[in-house]
């Protein structure tokens, strides 16, 4: 079976490589992808039509904005699928043990049968387990870094139509910053900042922002995602409306992507209980 699989792979790979000989030369300006009106049109007209310097972003969020909306919907679906498949309720023991750490010495105390210490305690902090120690250096450095990471992520989102970047990348970086928080501290810390419901709302709000912009275009008399239709509403020229529409859309993407990243990590690391994780 394995040999068959390898043989099939080799056969297919060989065929694909063989056909490469039939391709137009790499970078040949006369080859169809470069010569055909599509690429030419994008290179020559993007700035006039959308006032967006980054052609990639313009194609992504405007010319083929519909694809991108569905890519975002894919992300949304992934989060929803993880929720649907992984989320569990009622599997936790009725009274879990709580582990507290003495902040000064690092000694761990396990309180059985759900007993707790005061959350306001300055000397003891609740931790997820005694295996993963609370590390002062890591947590402090991460706490220092995370705001900068998030700032950078916002920059990537907002500056997407001028420089490389956009909603996807920015959203992922934003999500990654929260994952860093979860890893450097523990899941509980993240959970307190971002309850599941809020994340879910954020997730949906992002994609609704995207499709809502598209739908609003329809309501204002354009086709779906025809940003020009929103020009009068926003008080800008149609070309400028494209640029602004792209910005809105990118923000929506970023929200959804960020929420998805956090949610998936949460569900995986807490085994679906959304309680205590790695």
């Amino acid at each position, binding site marked *: 079976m394995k040999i068959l699989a390898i043989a099939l792979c080799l056969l297919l790979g060989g065929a694909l490589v063989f056909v490469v000989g039939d391709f137009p030369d790499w970078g040949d300006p006369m*080859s*169809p992808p470069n010569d055909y009106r599509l690429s030419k049109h994008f290179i020559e007209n993007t700035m006039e039509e959308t006032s967006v310097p980054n052609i990639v972003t313009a194609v992504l969020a405007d010319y083929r904005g*519909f694809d991108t909306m*569905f890519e975002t*919907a894919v992300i949304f679906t992934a989060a929803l*699928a993880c929720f649907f*498949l992984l989320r569990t309720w009622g599997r936790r023991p009725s009274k879990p043990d709580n582990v507290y750490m003495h902040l000064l010495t690092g000694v761990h105390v396990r309180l059985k049968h759900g007993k707790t210490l005061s959350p306001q305690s300055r000397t003891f902090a609740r931790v997820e387990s005694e295996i993963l120690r609370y590390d002062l250096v890591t947590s402090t450095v991460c706490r220092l870094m995370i705001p900068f990471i998030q700032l950078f992520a916002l920059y990537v989102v907002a500056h997407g139509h001028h420089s490389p970047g956009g909603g996807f990348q920015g959203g992922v970086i934003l999500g990654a910053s929260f994952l860093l928080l979860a890893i450097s501290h523990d899941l509980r810390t993240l959970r307190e900042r971002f309850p599941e419901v809020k994340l879910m709302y954020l997730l949906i709000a992002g994609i609704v922002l995207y499709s809502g912009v598209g739908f609003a275009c329809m309501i204002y008399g354009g*086709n779906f995602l025809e940003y020009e239709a929103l020009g009068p509403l926003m008080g800008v020229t149609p070309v400028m409306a494209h640029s602004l529409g792209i910005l809105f859309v990118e923000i929506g993407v970023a929200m959804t992507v960020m929420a998805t990243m956090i949610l998936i990590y949460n569900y995986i690391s807490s085994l679906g209980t959304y309680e205590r994780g790695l």
Partner: protein
Amino acid sequence: MISQQYPALLIIAPLLGAFVVAVLSWVDKKYCFGMAVASLAAATVSSILLLIDVVAQAPEPIVYKLGGWDPPFGISYYVDSLNALVLAVISCVTLVNLGTVRTAVNKEHPGKEGSFYALYLLAVTGHLGMVVTGDAFNLYVLLEIAALSGYALLGMGHRRAAFSTLNYLFMGTIGASFYLLGVGYLYIQTGSLNMVDIAGILTQTGATMTVLTAMSLIFIGVLIKMALFPMHAWLPNAYTHASSPASSLIAPMTTKVMVYVLIRMMLTVFTPDITFSMPPVTETMVWLASAAIVGCALLALSARNLKRMLTYILIAEVGYMVGGAWLGNTTGMTGAVLHIVNDAAMTLVMFLAAACMAYRLKSLDFDDLKGAFSKMPFTMAFFVLGAVAMIGVPPTCGFFSKWYLLLGGVQAGNAGMFGGYVFCGSLILSSLINVVLFFRVFEIAHFEPLAQGVDDHGHPIRPKIPMEEAPPTLVGGLALTAVALVVLGLFTSDIVDVIEAGVLPLLDPSLTDTIFLAVTGS
């Protein structure tokens, strides 16, 4: 004008509906169902109105420019009678299924109804989008949505559902990757992603090596996704172990939509000139389809579980459609498209009946079906009707598509393609095997448990089985769809008119330019 927005509305309505349902699942679960039905109903209405519009202006297709960009530059929808029909069927089928399965969802996914409905709507969006789109890459994106939500829906099932869905995920991803690779190769050759535009360029370049590779990659990918016989192994497990509301959504929809994609690729993108340019390939495909029909019918014989048997029949039906499409004549193509319509309805009936049975019986293993006729007479009556359609008995719709396919096979055979006769033979054989398959189920449900002893008059004493019918909503939906089988059958000529309005221009080289003009405007 709202009527110009139908193509977008029928995608947007379920998509936005999915988001709203997802929010509602956190606000108050009891509104989820209503919202889901409302949004899907909106999509259904717009797809039906779209169908009416398209038929009125055939053969010129309706073009919808998303974002207002002209076709080769932006994404455009491209609706002719062919996909308008499939759209209407898919949306109706999913709407009926959604309205029906509510109680089953509550039973099988307690606490997660909201996300079930949201995923349901997303799956429908994906499939509808694949049908309506006129852009090869957009199709891939929607394929992803459809597949992803499908994995989630199927994965949340009984014992081994997750594992068998993992297999589905692997195969589905491979299939999708093949498709994407093929589209990439096409882009290298043509520099365009718009289907009609690609076709226009391909008529100039002809069948170069790259185009042929792209064609084979796309076809292989699509064939994997639709589970044609040698590539079918993932399907039976995935559908069998899934929960009944999920499988009654996915089963009528996915394979049919993939067959549509195959036909669309054959006719619109590669055009009949290139698709049927190599008789050995065409012949091979017909033989392959025949092998699929017979092979899966035989595999179905070995199944000991009702749902597994149905899945094998489902794969055999895929063979019907693929074979019909590759016969290379109008009748066969009409039969294939007609069978998309009919098979969607028939599969829905069969899987809804399975859902009804699963609601009351311990499992769907044959041993647990004993006494089902006494226990749930209405369900079984409609199941019989569905089975009769599957076997292909008039006036149920299953007969008519088989009629066209057989006729197409005979015509292809007369035109010198021996595979045509083989295809006819395998169709007949599979109908006969279907008789055996279904009557085996009927026998178990009708005769067993066997009588114990004899009464005063010499009649066997049969154990008393109290009637315990599935909830009225489930049985009601089942009844509706079962009756629809007959209605569809009686309206075959109208459906065929619509299909021919869609298929004939695509098969007719002289009309290609008209469509090209209508879509690209140049």
